[in-house]
């Protein structure tokens, strides 16, 4: 039995700070994806929503809210909440329904409306919640990004110029993406003159939080054969947990696991490894990658976790120009989080949408010539992360 499902259609609501209800973005994206797929909403048998902790009663328990807004039609419903990996888990739920034969046609939707500034935890004295503890001590998300960045500088010879070059590259990619929030081609000088947030990272190295929505229509391969000519296939969805002893500093924890009696493990590397194994794809097979540049510096970490280069060689890969559009292995052709800003439950789906457009040869100015295989990677709080591999 094939473990693959087809992506019949994709759709997005442009990222921005629109200030409207997140349901609007989700429905806009869903309708676009349905139209792209050429199927009717009434024929969708399973609707899978990616939830956000914002917007009240976790994203109105997302799947049902999107189904109601599209018009109740009796589909089976699912909601996934997994921080930054919420979209991938919603995708995995839909894939499982299709592969088990319970349904043939599924819709996956994620959307968010974000407040301005730092994302912060619930109030009160709650020392049992690691997220509360770290904020109480003054440790925000950029703190973690900066800790990784500084370590790269001291161990791998990364420079602030490298982090800046990632931002400038991704901004240039995003300038050509109608769904990106920022279309400005930031210059090196503008990045280096922006305010310091968490040394060595400046404001323009750190991603914003955005409003946005993304949706995909999935089907069985059999349904796709009957229906559509050119549907890229999802070959892997990795949503693994870390393995003990997880020995990298991870949001929102104040301490790592102790590796006193168990070997130290890298969580982010394991996310990609699992996806490659599941898809039967090697890093050399990739045409492009969409990775979570929560900070520009973290794109370099992902080059290594995805095995696009050996550990410690990410700076060389970047400086060679390989990861620009037109290079050997373009990364973040969408513009990445640098150009989007993070809309948490929609972001992992937006990454997959970009792969689909690229694999269909419909990415316009951003097109990677002859794209055949792409991978996404992301990671968020509480041990969540995901990678998705899509093949033409």
């Amino acid at each position: 039995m094939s473990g693959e499902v087809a992506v019949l259609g994709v759709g997005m609501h442009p990222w921005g700070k629109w200030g409207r209800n997140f349901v609007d973005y989700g429905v806009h994206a869903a309708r676009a994806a349905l139209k792209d797929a050429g199927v009717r909403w009434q024929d969708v048998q399973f609707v899978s929503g990616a939830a956000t902790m914002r917007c009240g009663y976790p994203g109105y328990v997302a799947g049902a809210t999107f189904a109601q807004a599209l018009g109740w039609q009796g589909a089976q419903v699912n909601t996934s909440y997994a921080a930054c990996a919420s979209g991938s888990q919603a995708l995995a739920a839909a894939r499982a329904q299709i592969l088990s034969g319970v349904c043939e046609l599924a819709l996956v939707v994620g959307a968010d409306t974000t407040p301005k500034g730092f994302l912060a935890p619930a109030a009160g004295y709650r020392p049992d919640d690691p997220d509360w503890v770290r904020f109480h001590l003054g440790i925000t998300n950029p703190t973690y990004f900066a800790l990784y960045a500084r370590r790269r500088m001291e161990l791998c010879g990364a420079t602030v110029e490298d982090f800046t070059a990632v931002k400038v590259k991704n901004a240039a990619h995003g300038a050509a993406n109608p769904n990106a929030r920022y279309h400005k081609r930031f210059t090196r000088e503008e990045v280096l003159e922006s305010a310091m947030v968490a040394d060595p990272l400046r404001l323009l190295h750190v991603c914003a939080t955005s409003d946005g929505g993304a949706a995909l229509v999935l089907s069985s391969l059999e349904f796709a054969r009957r229906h559509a000519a050119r549907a890229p296939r999802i070959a892997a969805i990795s949503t693994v947990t870390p393995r003990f002893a997880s020995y990298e500093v991870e949001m929102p924890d104040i301490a790592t696991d102790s590796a006193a009696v168990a070997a130290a493990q890298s969580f982010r590397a394991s996310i990609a490894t699992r996806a490659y194994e599941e898809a039967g794809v090697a890093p050399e097979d990739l045409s492009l990658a969409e990775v979570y540049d929560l900070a520009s510096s973290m794109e370099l970490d992902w080059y290594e976790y995805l095995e696009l280069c050996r550990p410690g060689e990410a700076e060389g890969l970047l400086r060679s120009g390989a990861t620009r559009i037109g290079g050997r292995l373009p990364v973040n052709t969408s513009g990445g989080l640098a150009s989007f800003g993070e809309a948490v439950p929609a972001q992992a789906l937006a990454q997959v949408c970009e792969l689909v457009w690229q694999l269909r040869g419909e990415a316009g100015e951003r097109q990677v010539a002859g794209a055949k295989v792409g991978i996404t990677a992301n990671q968020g709080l509480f041990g969540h992360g995901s990678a998705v591999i899509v093949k033409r």
Partner: protein
Amino acid sequence: MSNNSRVAAIEGWYTLEPQPHLIGSRCRACGTYFFPRLSSFCRNPACEGNAFDEVKLSRTGRIWSYTNACYPPPPPFVAAQPFVPFAIAAVELEAERMIVLGQVAAGIDVSQLKVGMPVELVLETLYSEGGQDKLVWKWKPSGAPA
């Protein structure tokens, strides 16, 4: 020195001695350390332990990485007015093979820090409220003036 009483900002996470320690747990079955304390089930998947000794963690370690906070973090952080930027370090404890985050002692700037630098645990006031100084652990380069 204020006349405020000195209390822990987070109760039970560290001792208030002159030479303070973080308080952790050590699994009696496999010997793994945990911070903060654990009292239920060992998180080593190869271990079925559920009994722990309360242990004082090493009060010295080496900097794994470091950064600072240039803007006031949101609540539940209590920011002083005016806000004074502070450094933050992730510190590797050798015996425990564990990395613990914390603020760096007041007055120490990122330019004075380096990966691999030895540091020790100190207590400083995180914020003051109702006649109490709420103390928290911070990392201080070893040998830095008091």
